[in-house]
C-alpha cells in the first residue's frame, strides 16, 4: 500500500446532515425514480390501450365512482401538513414535534390503506373484464404497494420514535421518510386524475 502524507483532518465534520447532503436522501431519490417510472409505465399503458376503444370507459362499463377516490386524494394532500411539520421538527431536533407528526401520519396512512380497498370497488369494473379494467386495477395496485410500504415504514418509525434508543441521525432518517411520503402522496394526484377523473371528463 502506498504511503501517505496527511494533508487534512476531517474529524470535525458533522455526522447528522439533512437533504441532499445525506446518503439516505440520495438512496430515497433513487427508489423514487424507480417507482415513479413504474407508475409512469402504467399511465403510458393506460393511454396506449385507450386507443383501442371507441368509448372510454368501454361500452357497458360504468364510470368510476368519484366519492371515495376524491376523499382519498384530499386526504393524501392534507396528510402532507403533519408530515411537513414533522420534517421541519426533525431539522430542529425537536423530537416532540416529530413524534406528533408521525403519529398523525401513521393514523392517516392506515385510513388511506383502508380507503384504497374501497377505491378498487369504486372502479366499477373487474380486472378481468377488459383491458380498461386491467390497466386501472394495475395502476391502483402499483400505487397501493407504495402506500402499503410507506404505511409500514411510517408506523415502524413511529414505534422507534417512542420506544427506541434514539440517535440524532434517526431524525435525519425521519426526514428522508418524509421525502418518500411527499412522493407517494404527490404522485397519487395525477394518477387520481387519470384513473378516476379522465373517464368522466374526456
Amino acid at each position, binding site marked *: 500500500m502506498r504511503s501517505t502524507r496527511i494533508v487534512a483532518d476531517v474529524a470535525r465534520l458533522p455526522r*447528522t446532515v439533512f437533504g441532499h447532503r445525506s446518503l439516505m436522501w440520495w438512496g430515497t431519490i433513487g427508489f423514487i425514480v*424507480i417507482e415513479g417510472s413504474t407508475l409512469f409505465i402504467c399511465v403510458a399503458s393506460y393511454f396506449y390501450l385507450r386507443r383501442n376503444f371507441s368509448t372510454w370507459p368501454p361500452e357497458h362499463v360504468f364510470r368510476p365512482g368519484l366519492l371515495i377516490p376524491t376523499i382519498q386524494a384530499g386526504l393524501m394532500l392534507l396528510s402532507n401538513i403533519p408530515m411537513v411539520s414533522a420534517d421541519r421538527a426533525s431539522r430542529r431536533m425537536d423530537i416532540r414535534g416529530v413524534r406528533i407528526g408521525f403519529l398523525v401520519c401513521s393514523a392517516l396512512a392506515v385510513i388511506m390503506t383502508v380507503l384504497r380497498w374501497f377505491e378498487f370497488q369504486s372502479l366499477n369494473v373487474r380486472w378481468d373484464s377488459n383491458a380498461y379494467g386491467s390497466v386501472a386495477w394495475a395502476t391502483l395496485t*402499483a400505487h397501493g404497494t407504495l402506500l402499503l410500504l410507506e404505511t409500514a415504514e411510517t408506523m415502524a418509525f413511529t414505534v422507534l420514535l417512542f420506544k427506541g434508543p434514539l440517535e440524532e441521525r434517526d431524525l435525519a432518517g425521519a426526514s428522508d421518510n418524509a421525502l418518500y411520503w411527499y412522493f407517494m402522496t404527490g404522485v397519487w394526484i395525477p394518477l387520481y386524475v387519470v384513473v378516476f377523473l379522465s373517464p368522466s371528463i374526456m
Partner: protein
Amino acid sequence: MTAIPADPARPTDDESVRRQLDETWRQTPGLWGWLTSVDHKSIGKRYIVTAMVFFVLGGLEAGVMRAQLARPENSVLGPDAYNQFFTMHGMTMMFLFAVPVMTAVGLYLVPLMIGARNVAFPRLNAYGYWVYLAGGLFLYISFFLNTGPDTGWFSYVPLAGPEFSPGKRVDVYAQSITFTEIAALVAAVELIVTIFKNRAPGMTLNRMPLFVWAMLVQAFMVLFAMPWVATVTQLLAMDRLVATHFFNPAEGGDALLWQHLFWFFGHPEVYIILTPGLGFVSMIVATFTRRPVYGYPAMVLSLLSVGFLSFGLWVHHMFATGLPQLGQSFFTAASMMITIPSGIQIFCWIATIWAGRPRFGVPFLFVLGFVVIFVIGGVTGVMVASVAFDQQVHDSYFVVAHFHYVLIGGAVFPLLGAFYYWFPKITGRMLSERLGRWNFWLLFVGVNLTFFPMHQLGLEGMPRRVYTYLAGTGWGPLNLLATIGAVLVVVGVLLFVINVAVSLRRGALAGDDPWGADTLEWATSSPPPPYNFAHIPVVEGRAPLWEQPGELPAVSGLRTDVRDVLVTTLLDARPDSLHRHPPPTIWPLLTAIATTILFVTLIFTPWGAVIGTPLLLLTLLGWGWPHGRDHQEQRMVEQTG
C-alpha cells in the same frame, strides 16, 4: 515507543491505524461471516464468480444448440428442448451474466477507484446479490425440472400469453426477470450514490476515471430502463395468472404494447452491457500505452450521449410490425446517430495508441480484438438500422451475427481483458500471460468463425430461433463452419477457466501495482485490505498515481473503531460529513429469502401475497431496526415529554 494517542478512537501511527481498521472492518470468519458480509469486495467477488458460472452455463447451452444445427435435420435436441435452450441461453447471457457481471466488477472496483471504504449502502448491496442468486437458482432449478422458459428472452405475446404457453414456464420467465431486475436496480442506486457522494476529496466530476464515468452512465441507464421490463413482465404474469387483458386484442388489449414496453428496456439493455466494457477499454488503453486516453471530455460526452440516445432507438426492433414509415425513419436516424459517439470513442482510443508506447500484454490484446470485432458489429448495426434493409434481414441469422459481434466484441472481450488486468488486484496473483495469449487467439478466431458465416446465412434466408432446417435449403455447410468455430470458443473459455484455477494457486505474486497504472485502486495492496485505504487519499488530477509518484496526500480523522466513511459533495468532492456504516448483518439474506418466498409462491397462488408480504415486511423491519447503538459519538436525543 509510541505515544498514547489523545483519542483512542483515532490512533495516529500507521501500524495501529491499520490494526484497528482491520479489526473494525474485517468480515466475521467462517460461513456465518460469508453469509453476513457487507464488504463490497467480498460481495463483488462472489457476484463475479456467480455471473461467470452462468456465463459458462449459457455458453454450454449455446454449444448444444450449435451441435443441433451443425447439420440439417439433426436430432440432438427436439423442438421443445431447443426452445428452452435458446431461451435459457438468451436469458442467462442477458440477465444472469452480462448485466450482473458488469455491475459486479463495478461494485468491486468503483469504491477502490474513487478512494472509498465501501459502497454507499453495504446492506443493500448484500441484498442485491442474494436476490440475484435466488433469481438465477430459481431459473435453473426450473430449467432442470423441464419448466425452463421456452418463448425466447423477448417472450412476445400472444405466444407467451396464457393461451399458447400453458404451464408455469413463462411464469418462471416473468418472475426470474423480476429477481434480476431488482438486483440490477439496487446495484444501480448503490453505484450512483457511491459515485456521487463517496469520492475521495479532490476527485471532482471531471477528474473521475473513465471507468467510473462508464459505470455512472450505466447505472443511470439501468435506473431508467429496468423498471420497464420489470413492469411489463408483471403485466404478463397478471395476464397469465389472474386473467387480465393487457395483451388480449379481443378485450381491448394489444400485442404491440408488449413489444413497445419490452424494447424500451431492451434496447438500452444492449448499451447497459456495452458501456462498462467501454470503460474497461479506456482504463486498459491508458495503462498499456502509458499515457492518459486522448480526449477525456469527448470520451465523457460520448458516454453520456450513448446513454441518452439509447432510449430513442427501441422501435428499430419493430420495423417489421408495420408501423408508419415516417416514424420508422426517425428511429433509423436515431439508430444511425448513436454510431457517432461510439465512433468517437474508437477514434480516440486509436489516437491514444498511436501517441503512446503500447505494451502488448494480454489485456491489451483483448482491447485490440475488441476494436476489430466491435467495429464489424457496429457497421452491420448501421445496416440493420435502415428500415428497408432491416425488413429483409430482421429475425434472420444476419441479426444473430450482428448482435453477437456487438456483445461479444463490446462486452466479453473487454471483460476478459479486464479480468487479466484486475485479477492481480483482486487475488494478489497474476494470470499466466502464455495461456492468456492462447486464450485470446482461440477466442478471436473462434468467434469470427462462428459468427461471420451467420451474416451470409441470414442473407440466404435462414430465420432465427429454428431448431432445425431442411437439407434442401443449402444452409448446411455454413452452419457446420459456425459449429466448428463454436468448438474453438469453448476450448478458449476452457483455457481461461484453467488459467484462473492454476493462477489462483501458482500465479506470480503481483504486488500493489504490477502494470504501472494511474488510478487509485493500484495504490492499495493486492488484494486490498477490508478497509481499502488506511487513510482516504486526496486527489489532485485525473491520473493520481502518475501525478504523485511518491507519497499520496491523504486525510485523517475518520474513526478507526467504528465503520466511519467520508461523504463528499457531489460536484467538487469537498469533504462534507461523516457517515457510519453498519456492521455485518444477516438481515439482507433473510430479506432476500422472504422476497424469494413471495415471488415464487405468487406464481402458484394469489395467497403467495398473503404469506410473502408480511414476511417481507418483517424482515425489512429487522433490517431497519437499530441494533447495537454507539453512544459515544452520537448524542442521544433528549427524551422530552
